[in-house]
């Protein structure tokens, strides 16, 4: 589904991602774990065409050039960015409409998203800025789902959310598994590994561990560094 070779992301002289390679198979949930500043968000920004990158990215056997955010969105490589990035002064439903800007049949997807997050339906005529943090995160995920993603890249979806809401969100992700492939970047490593098939651990822009979730959960050094066990 996704094949990434030697991905590099630089901001001026700062090398955020230093040439990483990884892959995702169709239907998998794969996590990228790592401390703050490890290069997780930069990796996703590079894949989603938000920032310039080097290296080759093949999605559905097609080459995705650097900075091609429109192309990746149209092909179904959808990024749900960190910090929600919803449009604060647009209504909830307008936000969702924008989600289907590049692809996705609006009415059909809207029904799907409202079924998944009934709160959003209740609040559809409110501005996104007036929602609570948890609701905004639901909206951000919902907006990504509007474009009928084939590969959904989620960046820190649980950031700043109450534990109950995080649980709800992860239940939704598991539900989505048979519909799409998911690349999950998460600070909550234990939770992420529980729902993932495989995971990569990033450190200073390099992949330092990789394996199935079970392997990583059993690895002493990973446990110590990222799971606090």
């Amino acid at each position, binding site marked *: 589904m996704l094949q990434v070779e030697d991905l590099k992301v630089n901001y001026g002289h700062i090398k955020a991602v230093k040439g990483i390679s990884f892959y995702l198979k169709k239907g998998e949930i794969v996590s990228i774990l790592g401390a703050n500043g490890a290069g997780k968000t930069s990796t996703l920004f590079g894949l989603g065409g*938000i920032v310039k990158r080097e290296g080759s990215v093949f999605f559905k056997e097609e080459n995705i050039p650097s900075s091609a*955010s429109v192309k990746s969105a149209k092909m179904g490589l959808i*990024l749900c*960015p960190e910090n929600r*990035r919803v449009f604060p002064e647009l209504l909830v439903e307008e936000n969702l409409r924008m*989600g289907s*800007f590049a692809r996705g049949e609006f009415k059909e997807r809207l029904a799907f998203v409202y079924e998944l997050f009934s709160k959003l339906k209740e609040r559809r005529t409110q501005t996104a800025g007036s929602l609570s943090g948890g609701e905004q995160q639901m909206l951000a995920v919902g907006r990504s789902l509007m474009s009928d993603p084939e590969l959904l890249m989620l960046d820190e979806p649980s950031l700043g959310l109450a534990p109950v809401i995080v649980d709800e969100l992860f239940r939704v992700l598991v539900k989505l598994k048979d519909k799409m492939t998911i690349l999950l970047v998460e600070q909550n490593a234990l939770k992420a590994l529980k729902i993932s098939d495989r995971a990569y651990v990033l450190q200073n822009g390099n992949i330092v561990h990789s394996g199935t979730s079970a392997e990583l959960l059993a690895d002493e050094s990973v446990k110590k560094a990222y799971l606090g066990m």
Partner: protein
Amino acid sequence: MLVLQSIILGIPQGALYGLMGFGIALIFRSVGTMNFAHGNAGMVCVFVAFSVFTATGSIILSILCGIIVGFLLGVIIDKALMGPIKHLSHAGMLMITLGLLMIFEGAAQLIWGTDYQQFPELLRGEPLIMRLGENKLIMPLNDLLITAVAVAVSIIIALYLKYAKLGIATRARAQDPIGAKVVGIDTNMVDSLVWGIGISISVLVGILIAPKTYIHPGMMGNMQIYGFTAGVLGGFESLFGAIAGGLILGILEKLVGAYISPDYQLSIVLIIIIIMLAVKPSGLFGKKSSGRV
């Protein structure tokens, strides 16, 4: 009665200020730069319309040409000049618009000279005569047309921004550029569109005001200042604040003219900017929300 008369006379003028402010605010909100060349970009295109008019004699054709050239000029400014530095510096973009301000004026002088050219009124005929108690108020038909056009354009753009997919995308891009990118909005295309629409509006204002000011390289100088003021007054955060700000300005200007002295009209405008920035920097209709979102 003098009050009512000033208000009625101020509306057509204010509607133009409002449109001008609206275009400036539209560009500011989306792209993040104050366009100092807004009026002069419009002026150059009014000259184009004038040339088309002298060549063909058709008012409609000349207006269409002017507006289309305005749209293209906006797109070119964005693609060729703003595009390369968009992500680097807002101050740089501001300097470019200042440069354009002078380039447009100089180019217009070189090509069309400094003479005052006459552009026909779009609507001629019996003026509308209103009775206000004992006074009679004479309203030229062209002024009525100006008001109607300004209202129509505002409504069309409001509907576009509210309901059209690209219109919502324009607002979305202004509120969160990264959010806009991840849903697949081509933000560069939206920026070009915004520049195109903004400059087209300036051309329209220029054509509507041309029968009064005549066409010359400095014709839009006042419009630029009044447009900014309309934006400051209404708040750049809300597009329709600029229109309301423009109307308030137009009416205020006539009131100052009637009760104090026409000489003070422009100074009053500048005083308003200063007071507004000191008392309520976000403008009458602006919200205290962060940045330019």
